[in-house]
C-alpha cells in the first residue's frame, strides 16, 4: 500500500472518522456534545494534543525502547493535555468551565494513544502530522455534527461559538418546545446511534 500524505490526511475525515468508524473516544463524544460549540472546542483541544503527540512520538520512535513505549507515550500525551488545560484556562476560561473534567480526560482518550501506538510510532514525521490532523479534524467535525443535532432538538438553537447563534428555532417558531431529553445523557446515545445508522447506509451504497 502506497502511503501518501493526502491519503493519511483524508482517511481521518471519512474512512476512519473516529467516533463513527473506529468507534473510539466515545466518552467525550457522548459527554460534551450538548451544544455544537462544546463539540468544536473539545475537538480542537483533542486535535492539538493529537498532532503534537504524533509529532513527538514519531520523532522519538527510534529512541524510545519498545518495552517502555506506552509509558513514554503517556508522558508525552499527558504533558500536552496539561498544556492545553492551562492555556484554555488562561485564554478561553468560559469554554474551560463548560468542558471541565473532559479536558484532563483527553489523556485517556484512546484515539490519542491509539494513533501514537498504531501510527506515529511506525511512520515518519510528515505522515504522522497528516494522520493526526486528519483524525483530529474528523473528530472535531463528528463532535460538531452530533452537538448541532442534539442542540437543535434539545434546545432549539445551534451555537457556533460563544454568542454566535446560527439558528434559533424558539425565536422562529414561538410554539416550538425543545426535547429536553436530547441534551441529557440518553439523548447522546440515541443521536449517536441515528448518525451511525445514516453513515452506514451511505457507506454501504
Amino acid at each position, binding site marked *: 500500500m502506497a502511503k501518501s500524505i493526502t491519503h493519511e490526511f483524508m482517511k481521518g475525515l471519512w474512512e476512519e472518522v473516529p467516533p463513527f468508524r473506529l468507534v473510539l473516544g466515545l466518552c467525550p463524544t457522548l459527554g460534551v456534545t450538548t451544544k455544537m460549540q462544546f463539540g468544536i472546542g473539545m475537538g480542537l483541544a483533542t486535535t492539538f494534543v493529537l498532532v503534537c503527540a504524533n509529532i513527538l512520538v514519531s520523532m522519538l520512535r527510534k*529512541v*524510545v*525502547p519498545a*518495552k*517502555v513505549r506506552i*509509558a*513514554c507515550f503517556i*508522558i*508525552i500525551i*499527558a*504533558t500536552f493535555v*496539561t*498544556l492545553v488545560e*492551562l*492555556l484554555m*484556562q*488562561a*485564554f478561553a*476560561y*468560559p469554554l474551560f*468551565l463548560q468542558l*471541565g473534567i473532559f479536558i484532563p480526560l483527553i489523556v485517556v482518550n484512546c484515539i490519542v494513544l491509539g494513533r501514537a501506538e498504531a501510527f506515529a510510532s511506525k511512520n515518519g514525521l510528515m505522515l504522522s502530522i497528516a494522520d493526526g490532523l486528519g483524525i483530529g479534524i474528523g473528530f472535531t467535525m463528528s463532535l460538531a455534527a452530533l452537538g448541532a443535532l442534539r442542540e437543535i432538538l434539545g434546545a432549539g438553537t445551534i451555537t457556533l461559538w460563544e454568542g454566535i447563534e446560527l439558528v434559533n428555532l424558539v425565536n422562529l417558531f414561538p410554539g416550538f418546545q425543545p426535547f*429536553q431529553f436530547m441534551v441529557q445523557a440518553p439523548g447522546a446515545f440515541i443521536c449517536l446511534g441515528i448518525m451511525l445508522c445514516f453513515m452506514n447506509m451511505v457507506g454501504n451504497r
Partner: protein
Amino acid sequence: MGEMIKMVIVLTILSSLSGGVLAYVKESTQERIEMQVLQLVKGPAIMSIFKDATNDPVADRFSIDDEGTNLDFFVAKIDGKQMIAFETSGKGYGGDVGLVVGIDTSTDKIFGVGVTTHSETAGLGSKAKDDPKFAAQFAGVDIKGPIQVGDPINALSGATITSDAVCSAATDAGEIYARLKPQIEKELQAFK
C-alpha cells in the same frame, strides 16, 4: 543490562523535560488564570451584589491567611458604608456550590449573596444562580445565623439539597467572618 539502563534514561529524560515545560507554562499563565477566575467567576457575582458600589469591588481587595488557606476579601463602598464580600462553598447535589457572601460591616448583616460555580441540575438546582428571588432572600439576614432552609430561607422547589448547600455556605461565611473580624477591620482601614 544495557537495555535496562536505556529505558531508565529515556523515561527520566522525558519526565524531567515534561516537568520542566509544564512548570514553566504554569508559572507564566498563573497570573492570567487568576485574573480570568476573578473576572468571569467571582466578578459577576460580586458585581451583582454590589450594584451600587462607588468603587470597583473586584479591584479593591485584600487577602487574609485563614488557617493555612488564603481568603480573598473584596471591599465595596455603598452610601459611605463599607461592605466586604468573600467566597465560601457548600456541598450540593452535583458537587461544591460556590457562594460569594457580601456582608455589611457596620450591621453584621448579609447585604447580598451570589452563586459562582456549581454543577447542579439545569432547571432545578441551577436556579440558585439564575433566579434572583432566591438570592434576594438572604439580604438582611443576620450573619451570626442561624441561616437554614425553612427559616429564614425558603428552599428552591425541587432543589432542597442545593438550597441547603447555599445556606451552609452562608453559615460558613458567618463563622469565618466572626473568626477573622479583628483582622478584617484592620485591613479595612486602608480602604477608608
